[in-house]
């Protein structure tokens, strides 16, 4: 019991740390990864709190799908940024 409490406390601190990194970092990639890490820690925390179903949802959607989606959109932004500036500046239709 005490071991689980200790582990939960460490995980909670790690979650807070990852959230702070996500907020304070200048690099978008690191911020996305840190946000995914928050979800991952939270899902382990749910597991310790005896809610494996919620933990699974959090891991699949929070840290899996959302992180992938952010990288996907980042890739698109980079692609658009890589285009010649002239066509990009003409504004959207």
């Amino acid at each position: 019991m005490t071991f689980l409490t200790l582990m939960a406390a460490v995980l909670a601190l790690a979650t807070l740390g990852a959230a702070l990194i996500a907020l304070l970092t200048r690099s978008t990639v690191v911020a996305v990864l840190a946000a995914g890490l928050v979800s991952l820690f939270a899902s382990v925390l749910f597991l310790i709190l005896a809610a494996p179903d919620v933990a699974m949802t959090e891991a699949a959607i929070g840290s899996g799908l959302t992180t992938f989606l952010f990288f996907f959109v980042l890739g698109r932004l980079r692609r658009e940024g890589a285009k010649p500036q002239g066509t990009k500046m003409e504004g959207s239709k």
Partner: protein
Amino acid sequence: MTTRTAIPLVLLALLGTAFFTLFAGYVPDAELNRTAAYYANQTVAETGAQNVVTAIIVTYRGLDTLGEVTVLFLTAAIVGLVLAHSKAPKGRSGSGFLPSGELLTTGTRMLVPVILLFGAYVFVNGHLTPGGGFQGGAIVASGLLLMLLADPAERFSHGLISRIESSAGLTYVILGLLGMILAGGFLDNRILPLGTFGSILSAGAIPLIYILIGLKVGAEFSSILTSLEETEDAE
């Protein structure tokens, strides 16, 4: 400048105080309340499911789950509708894509089958182990997203996705109605024999319903992701 930093700090402090009072006043219940005790005691006898959470989601609160799936469907439909206006012309990639790199391409080829298999495993075993339709569907969709990441020009058949989605939804509702005719009520799982407790073909219609939910959720997420991919870049 100081007020701009002060206001979020004050708000944060207020939020922290609210959460702390909640935390300080928390006393764990000595025993389950009546609803929880009913679920804990009766689930195995009534539904034959090993995972009580699944039994509650699919059977006791099945109508709510149908509502949730409908909300997700509406989201997917609206995203498709909005993004259809900026859809890239056929045969063209949504944007001139950059190659994604050897590591990602090879890794994707190796991992995607495993991810899809794991997703299917999660929703087929929903009544036995933690997890179920929503989680499995999300895992399947993230496998698909990985394929899109590796090759942005990859195209998935919208017809196939929407056929899977609509037939799964329709079968779900029909199973629910069958529950009204053959068993105790809408979405009652006892239209099929309960089987041996703990085996994969047990718990009546729960595995069937959860597979349908998994397919539906997977198809909905996939349709959102492919719609996002196929939009044209702003030019």
